[in-house]
């Protein structure tokens, strides 16, 4: 019954091997980073592939999590990601909905104005001046508000809203719903895939953001994870070339810059990697949504 022929077996085997190589080449770098990060620095210096850790140790992680600042910056980054993503999705929805309505006069004009910002941004210094003059420096608002709405994501959402049949909205209006009720009770529940996709875009963007932390935050109590991790690289980096005298007495002195890099990457990427599989299907969908209508 259904016995496979030799060419079929060959084809399947070839596919399996190719897919295995492809899967290995995409997953190994992550594995390598994690294994390196929990290997002893000196053992890791010999290079080569890392299928298992060499002389396993959590010294680098202990060094990273030894100070209270790491917890502060994690807290700030989580707050910024949650608040920023929530606010961004809300603002994008509130903007996208009217722009998706054919009856809204001037929607082309407003769309064009928003599209313009995708081509020309204000630039770093003018944006800094705006943030400063609004009194937002040294607050997490400075990290959230300037990028609270992405024109790209708004257009993705607008296009999705446009794909929802008008009759649903008309029925709700006939039943006495006002536009806000239509948005929150009809449109948004039907737009879960699009909302999840842009929430992921915003979330990953907020989590990975770095330069705004450098520019707008002077107080270390308000600093974010990516800036902190950048400086941690230097802690080992300074030792990498010359070290410092104090290194003689510390357990961290046996750490190399490479190990700290691996730890930094792991700490930064793992949270995103954990969330990603749950949202991945929306990611693809979100991209497709943007390509359906212009």
């Amino acid at each position: 019954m259904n016995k496979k022929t030799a060419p079929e077996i060959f084809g399947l085997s070839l596919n399996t091997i190719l897919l295995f190589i492809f899967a290995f080449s995409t997953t190994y770098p992550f594995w390598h980073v994690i294994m390196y990060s929990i290997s002893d620095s000196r053992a890791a210096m010999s290079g080569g592939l890392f299928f298992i850790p060499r002389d396993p140790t959590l010294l680098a992680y202990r060094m990273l999590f030894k100070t209270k600042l790491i917890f502060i910056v994690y807290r700030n980054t989580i707050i910024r990601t949650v608040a920023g993503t929530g606010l961004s999705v809300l603002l994008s929805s509130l903007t996208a909905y009217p722009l998706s309505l054919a009856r809204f006069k001037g929607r082309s004009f407003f769309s064009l104005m928003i599209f313009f910002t995708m081509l020309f941004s204000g630039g770093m210094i003018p944006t800094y001046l705006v943030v400063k003059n609004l009194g937002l420096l040294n607050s997490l608002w400075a990290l959230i508000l300037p990028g609270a709405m992405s024109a790209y994501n708004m257009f993705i959402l607008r296009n999705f809203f446009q794909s929802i049949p008008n009759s649903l909205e008309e029925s709700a209006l006939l039943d006495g719903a006002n536009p806000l009720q239509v948005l929150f009770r009809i449109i948004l529940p039907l737009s879960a895939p699009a909302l999840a996709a842009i929430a992921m875009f915003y979330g990953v963007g907020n989590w990975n953001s770095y330069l705004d932390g450098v520019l707008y935050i002077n107080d270390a109590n308000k600093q974010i994870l990516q800036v902190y991790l950048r400086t941690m690289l230097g802690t080992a980096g300074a030792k990498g070339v010359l070290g410092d005298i104090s290194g003689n007495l510390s357990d961290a002195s046996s750490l190399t810059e490479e190990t700290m890099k691996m730890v930094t990457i792991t700490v930064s990427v793992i949270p995103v990697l954990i969330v990603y599989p749950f949202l991945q299907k929306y990611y693809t969908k979100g991209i497709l949504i943007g390509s359906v209508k212009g």
Partner: protein
Amino acid sequence: MKNSKRILSVALALLLVFALAACQSTPTTTGGTTGATTTKGTTATTTAATTTTGTTAPPEPIVISTLHAGDNTPNPDNLVLQEITKLTGYIVEMTYVPGADYNTKLNALIAADDLPDLFSLGTNDALQMRDAGLLTDLTDILPANAPTIMADVGDELFKAPANFDEKIYLVFRGALGYPMNTSIRTDWLANVGLEMPKNLDEFYTVLKAFTEDDPNKSGKKDTFGLAGGIGRNYYASIFGAYGIPVDRNIQLSDGTVTTWMKHPMILDAFEYMQKLYKENLMEPDFATIPAMELFGKLWTGVAGVLIFQCVGTTNNWMPSRYTETPLPTFGFATLAGPGGSGGVPTIYPDYNSGWVVAASCETPVDAVKLAEFFASDAGDELLYLGVEDVMFRWTDKAAGKYERIAPYTDDATHRAAGAFVYHGRFASKNNIEVRLFNELTREGVALAHSQGLPDATIVGAFDENVEYASALGAIIEEAFAQLVVTDGDLAAEHAEFMKQWDEAGGTIWEEAATAMYKAENP
């Protein structure tokens, strides 16, 4: 189901509200011991260190803001900042920026007219900001308020291009960089029955023995002589034996200032390098090997010689970086060449970067006094080692011996508490780092400083350098790697590279550099 959805919605909404509430800006409290919130720019001229008596209210502490480039992670309310306040009366509002983004941050602050009181600059930026009236003229303030700094660099301040018009705007640090040493494993020398080499021939013999005579007694051929990378400094003493200061300008006999690659002895030096390369006595992948990996060859006992600052080989890497038991031992060689002498590139003060005081600083005298404290022995020790008897204690101060006090025994905690991370910008010639060297390293640094080769270093900036230096440097780098490995006609290939160099702007650069050098050295 409906209820759980509602509960979830309410929970998410609350989470969002709490998160947004947490974003509010709070008044900045700095590392003062009293925890008092103060405002920047207080114009009081007396510091809180001046004690007050009776019912007189103590003067409000002066806040001095600084921008510090660094790659560490100090806590905002750390012990060192608190101690600075205790000792000086100044509250230091320290903004700490990753080194790579310092200029980005500074540009934003300049544009926003929001400069810190005390910060670091390079010459070009300093000149532009000076001309724009953004910097304080320290000509009168510095001598009157900073005796330590004046004793350290006062005689040379006008050598900094930013101060060429004999007005002080930029103050460079007295601390020098470290010159190159030829560090050779003495335990391996003993194993192969050789003495410390004194010239290039003996050096060749040592490298050959380290490669072929089983210097680590492993019974295997698992070692080689010289570790090194693409950086020319890894071969500084070899070229130095021919009188060539690598990566420096030289002056030819006709007075022309040009690249070290045009030194009359350059082909002889490359012939020697080729011999090492072709006989596998040096790192075979020198052109591509990353720095950490090449150091690893020394740390793991694969290579026996490294031409590098001995502060690394015999001090900071010792013992933790070395993997062998017992630990390797090192000595330093001075390699004489055909002329009977040798050397390494001379280390000069960094005239092209230093600290400045913003014109917007309301208390420039206090900013200078704070810099003076940082440069003093007490301030220097505090910035480097932390708070005495809290974070560390001296066991033999004269010998530079100390011990860390728990929980500051590891670097992460130590630096989070503010030690080491602010050190450097104000360091004097005999700063704490130098005073803590072990004896061998002190000897090595002194030896290398004493072997400085003459060169034609130009301190000031000139347009042709800005325009051509990058392209010319790329040609030199390519030429270096090629001339070491080539099997072709060395002289012809060298001539071809120098022709490329000339045509890529080298001739124009030479004319400008010669004029500039003569102007600086009349």
